[in-house]
């Protein structure tokens, strides 16, 4: 029987690029640019869910994470994208 491990999976939920992000704009204008960090040209905010998932390997854990995000509508597909990353 194949061993099962616990994997750390990050789910990043971000608005699609064409969606206005007022929070990101405020951070850019009123924090970075106001303090002369002029090399910063864009800020987009996002939400990260840090999951621990039991699986046989990291790919299986990532697939499982994406499936449950779709099934439970963890992100609203009309405005957001969802990226699955392994933090192990």
């Amino acid at each position, binding site marked *: 029987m194949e061993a099962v491990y616990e994997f750390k999976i990050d789910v990043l939920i971000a*608005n699609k690029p*064409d*969606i*206005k992000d*007022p*929070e990101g704009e*405020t951070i850019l204008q009123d924090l970075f640019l106001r303090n002369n960090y002029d090399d910063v040209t864009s800020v987009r905010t996002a939400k990260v869910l840090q999951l621990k998932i039991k699986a046989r390997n990291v790919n299986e854990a990532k697939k499982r994470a994406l499936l449950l995000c779709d099934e*439970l*509508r*963890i992100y*609203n597909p*009309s*405005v*957001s994208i969802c990226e699955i990353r392994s933090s192990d």
Partner: protein
Amino acid sequence: MNVAIIQFPGTNCDIDTHRVFSNLLKVDVSFVWHKENDLTNFDAVVLPGGFSYGDRLRAGVIAAHSPVIQALKNFSLKRKPIIGICNGFQILVESELLPGALLKNSNQKFVCKWVTLKVENNNNIFTNYFKSNSLIRMPIAHNEGRYYVDNEKLDELERNNQIILRYVNSIGNTSIQGNPNGSVSNIAAVSNVEGNVLGLMPHPERASEAILSPDSSTDGIGLFYSMIHSLEVLLKK
């Protein structure tokens, strides 16, 4: 006629809404806890405002997984009226009973004020009490009210007359100044294609009694009058 008011953990406009139906409209109205899975005894459903599940993850999304939502979807298939107010609108969107999304207000602030709205479509069971293009007043109180659909979907909403109310300035223009939250095309209320499901960010239940209004207006009750009248006609058939 029996109206259901759905309660989720964090709902807080349920009592106000109940008062409008029981005291002002004199119709039978019951609270229904979100764990119920049967709405067959009801003729109309209201999802009132509040902060279901503390707006965790995204306003309305956790409530959208409650048992009562499947019953609500079956209820909608029978073309019975469903109205979602504020958080109720967010829940309807997250349940996919209405299209689009409700994002954080464009000014990054919780907005609480009275707004002017234009009745864009009065050929709907929730607005047939009003004349077309009427200007009405209601309060809003929300942090995530920026309605968004992409351009393709917006065209579809326009074609199907699903845009029911728009935010306007005091003289009825759909200006940026009249838009309190940055909603696309100043949309304040949308319906589904069939017209039996309505979601709106303004609070009609808070604009139903003159004593609660800064200018004594009671425009909000017009939506409920429309719904009750439409139901009475339907039930007599």
